């Protein structure tokens, strides 16, 4: 029973697709997502086949007993899915959450990195 209630509460929060940047840096691709108010323990990253889904919950609340005079943001569920290309080395994906921004590091697969081709003389 309690899980049913929990589910109802969960669905009551609005859903947001967090704003994201996709940047290619020297070391690979980075997906940056704005997830203010989301702590480490409220964040889930699922990698399934060629899709990575990031979901998190911001438990923002006005201080207890206080009345909101002006509101521009609220608690909510963040969720967004990205398709990964084969150029990404899935084993080495890393995620860092800092100051409310999730940095998902997607390194390029080894075989796709530029390399010099050895010439074998016969």
């Amino acid at each position, binding site marked *: 029973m309690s899980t049913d209630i929990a589910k109802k509460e969960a669905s009551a929060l609005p859903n947001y697709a967090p704003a994201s940047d996709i940047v290619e840096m020297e070391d690979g691709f980075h997906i940056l997502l704005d997830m203010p108010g989301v702590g480490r323990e409220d964040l889930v990253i699922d990698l399934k086949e060629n899709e990575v889904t990031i979901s998190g919950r911001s438990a923002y609340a006005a201080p207890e007993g206080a009345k909101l005079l002006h*509101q521009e943001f609220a608690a909510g569920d963040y969720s967004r899915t990205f398709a990964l290309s084969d150029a990404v080395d899935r084993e080495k994906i890393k995620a860092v959450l800092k100051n409310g921004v999730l940095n998902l590091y997607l390194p390029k697969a080894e075989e796709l990195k530029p390399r010099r081709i050895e010439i074998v003389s016969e």
Partner: protein
Amino acid sequence: MVIDFSNFYDLSRELDRFFDETSRPLFFSQRRVAYPMVNVAEDDQNYYVDVNLPGVDPKEFELTLTDKNLVVKGERKPEEGRYYRRERLQGVFQRIVAMGAPVEREKVAAKFTDGVLHVTLPKSEAVKPRKIAIDN
């Protein structure tokens, strides 16, 4: 007071809007593009100002309490690299929150967690609600 709105703003329109909006409380349904987003709450003891500042290092923004306003100002810098998608707002930002009543300037406290700045501004003794004894 110098108001240097960032380049995201159309200055004159934004000024009009600013004066229009600070004079009355706003509610969530009136969505608009403002950056960074601000919530203001109050109880008998304090005002609470919460600012959404994801990805801004606490060292890179300034929080100033002027005469009647609380000013948050800073810059969110872009990453170096080739952008394929750019949705997150970047650049210089400033928000001014007009304090409707005097606050205890010395006791203002700020905390930054998970990209949200929480500022607590205790109300001045003079404006705190108090019961008035009635003499018979």
